[in-house]
Each structure stands twice: as C-alpha cells, then as structure tokens.
C-alpha cells in the first residue's frame, strides 16, 4: 500500500517535471516555423465569375412629332437606358426635329425668321414595365416583350427658346434577340408655350419607332 502510494507520487512528480519544459519553451513566431507536413493538396484557384451583364440599352429612333398649333414633322434621335430591375428602367432621350410656320405665313403673319426652325429636346425618364410578356410571330417564334409606362422631365428648345417639359409615355419593346430591341413609343411632351403670344400649356404627341441594342 505504502509502496504503491510512493509510486503514484513519483509518477505524478515525473509527469509534472516532464511538463515543465513545455511551459518554459517560448514558441517561435509562426513565420519562422518550418511546416511540419507539406500538404499534398492542390488548391483550386477561386475566381469570381465574370458574367456578361447586359443592363444598358441604346437605341436610335425615328418618328413624328406634332407641335400644338403647328404641323407634324419628322423627329429622330437617340435614347440610352439602364435597366435597374425586371420592373424599372431609367432612360435619357435626345431628339431633333423642326417646326414650320407655313400656315401663318400664308395668312401673312410670319412668326419665325425663316419658315423652318430647329427643334431639339432632351428628357430624363423613369419607366415601369407594366405588362411584361411575349409576342408570337407565326407558329414557331415567341419573343420577349414588355409594355411600359414612363414619366419624365426635360427641356425642349424651339427657335432658341428653352421650355421645361414634362413627358408621359407608353411604349412597347420586343426583343427578337436577347441583345436586340425593337421599340414603339408614344409620348406626350407637355410644356408652356408662348409661340403664339400668350403662354399656355401645350400637348405635343410623338410617335416613334426605334431599334436598339443591349450591352
């Protein structure tokens, strides 16, 4: 009994002594340590995939712009859009057209210096794809499409005079290819016009066809 106690005590003592150097030893900084085992692992190179995102749309359009109290003239221009989500997009438009005072001239009251004067407008719009869908061309083709509503603000310059313009619009977009868009837009540009001497709110509809690409 006594012997076994002594043996246990000596065992405990030796184990205690044996652990002392371990505590005393200061570990080397990690960078100086040799790797104990070189892991035979091939680490796959993780690359964040670069996916082609196509959220920008640019399109060129031609159409007809009717200016209240004056005639209807061809209009053409460019639009650039960014698609924020499947529902919303923002679009900037720039258009060129002209205005003629032929009717007034015929009555002997010319309004402008020359019969045809320049018209240029721009606007910034927010649009909502209210009815996304598909259009069917014949039996075998279905193209993605959307009917959208837009509101915008901008400027129209008629005979060097700037007018602040609100616009509302309705449009149809059809995508025959994922990168190609066909557009039909109907817009009402509203601004206070004083071309006939008195300022009044005018409605100036525009109908246009556009061809665009996504990138």
């Amino acid at each position, binding site marked *: 009994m006594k012997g076994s106690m002594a043996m246990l005590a000596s065992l405990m003592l030796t184990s205690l002594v044996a652990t002392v150097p371990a505590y005393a030893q200061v570990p080397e900084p990690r960078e100086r340590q040799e790797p104990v085992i070189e892991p035979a692992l091939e680490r796959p190179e993780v690359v964040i995939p670069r996916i082609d995102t196509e*959220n920008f749309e*640019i399109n*060129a359009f031609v159409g007809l712009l009717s200016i209240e109290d004056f005639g209807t003239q061809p209009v053409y221009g460019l639009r650039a859009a960014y698609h924020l989500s499947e529902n919303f997009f923002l679009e*900037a438009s720039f258009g*060129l057209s002209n205005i003629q005072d032929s009717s007034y001239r015929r009555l002997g009251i010319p309004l402008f210096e020359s019969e045809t004067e*320049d018209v240029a407008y721009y606007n910034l719009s927010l649009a909502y794809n209210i009815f*996304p869908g598909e259009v069917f061309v014949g039996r075998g083709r279905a193209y993605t499409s959307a009917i959208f509503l837009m509101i915008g603000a901008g400027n129209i310059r008629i005979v060097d005079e700037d*007018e602040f313009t609100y616009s509302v619009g309705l449009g149809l977009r059809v995508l025959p290819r994922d990168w190609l868009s066909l557009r039909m837009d109907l817009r009402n540009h509203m601004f206070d016009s004083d071309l006939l001497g008195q300022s009044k709110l005018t409605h100036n509809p525009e109908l246009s066809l556009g061809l665009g*690409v996504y*990138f």
Partner: protein
Amino acid sequence: MRLPPHVSAWTVSALLGLLLWLPGTLLAEPVRVQVVEPFLELHTGPGRGYPVFHVLESGDKALILMRRTEWFKVRGESGVEGWVDRAQMERTLTDAGVSMGFGQVLLEDYLARRFEIAFVAGLFDKEASVGLRAGYRLGEYLTAEAGITHVPGTFSSSTVFNLNLVSNPFPDWRISPTFTIGAGYFDNVPQPTLVAGEEFSGNSALAGIGLRSFLSRHFVARVDWRRHVVLAGDESNREYDEFSAGFGFFF
C-alpha cells in the same frame, strides 16, 4: 443643339453603326456551373411571370451566357436555353467547386459599384429644373460628383455645371444623409422673346444636404437641398436655392 440636320444625320448613323458592332465585341467568357439542388428552373424570359418550360436536374451542367438585372440566361448540355433567377443561380456550383453563393454575387456587385448616375428634377429658385449627376465613389464615405442642372425658366434659361464632393457618413443606413460642397459655373441666357434680357454668367459655389435611400442594390432614390452662390462679377453675389428629387443607379 444647333447642328445642321445633315451633320446630325451623319452622327446618328455613325452611332447606329457603332451600336450594331458593339454586342459582338462585348461577349464575355461563359461561366460553367453544376446544378446541386434537386432542379434548376428555366423560365422563357427574364421575369417572374414567364413560365417555367424546362428544368435541369441535380448533377446537370449549365453555361451562364449572360445576366440581365436579376436574371441569368443559361444553356443546358442539351442546348436548351432559358432564364434562371438569382436565388436559384446562387445555389449552383462553379467548376472550382464553390458555390456562386449569395455572398459572392453580392460581393461582385459591391466591388463593381464605382459609378453612380442619377436623374433629378426639382425647383431652382422657384423655376422647374432638371439635372443629371454622375458620381465616382472615392471610398466608402466619399463620392466625387459632376452635375449639370438646366433651368428653362420663364425669363431666362440657366445652366449650372458643378464639381462636388459628397460625404455619406452612414452609407449602410436605410435612409442615409449626405453633405455636399462644390464649385462650378453658372450661365444665364435670357429667353429670346424677352426684350430687355441680359446675359450673365460667373463662377459659383454650393453647399447642400441630402438623403439617399437604397431601394434595391442598384437603385437609389435621392432628395437634395442645395444653395448656390453665384459670383456674378458685380458687388453682390446672387444666391439660389435648389430642391431636387430623383433616381440613381450604381454600376
């Protein structure tokens, strides 16, 4: 604005030519993924309402051809092509054996988020105004911004160009305040119908406060109040208040 029509026509056709050439050049390398969920649903179009017309099963390989907003166009091994939403796309594995992962797709967007463009409309000295803002994020809290505001007013048409620094001390708040200072140029042209109009222009400075709200990851609503001081050259400076609200996006 005052280009002769034939010059404009040439510009438009040159741009159109450029547009037709663009898509081919911008094709990125398709990314290959493996389906690990029981199935991956292919929709006929990039939107919630488009019907699911095909499913790829667990273990199938697919190529991601492109991304439009939150939708990914994929091609299965059989050649069938369809649109997959982001939530499902994130649960696939890439060739490297890693998940596309919520974190990774979001991180990619976040890292790519350098430029901001915003359309704004508002009141400038009580006249309706419209503006365009382009920002470049210098860091988490600071954005360099170039802005143009056009005020086609009753008596004159003014244009303000500005270079601003926008501080955004709490970028992660749902509605986050901003502080803006800037310098620029103010140009005021009287409307031609006005007889006694006088053109004036000069350097300007501005200070402002605003609010930004992240409606979704790319989409920001913003309102701003800015005070412009125009150094018109004579004894007195002219001061104008501008209130604006608008939408912006990051890319």
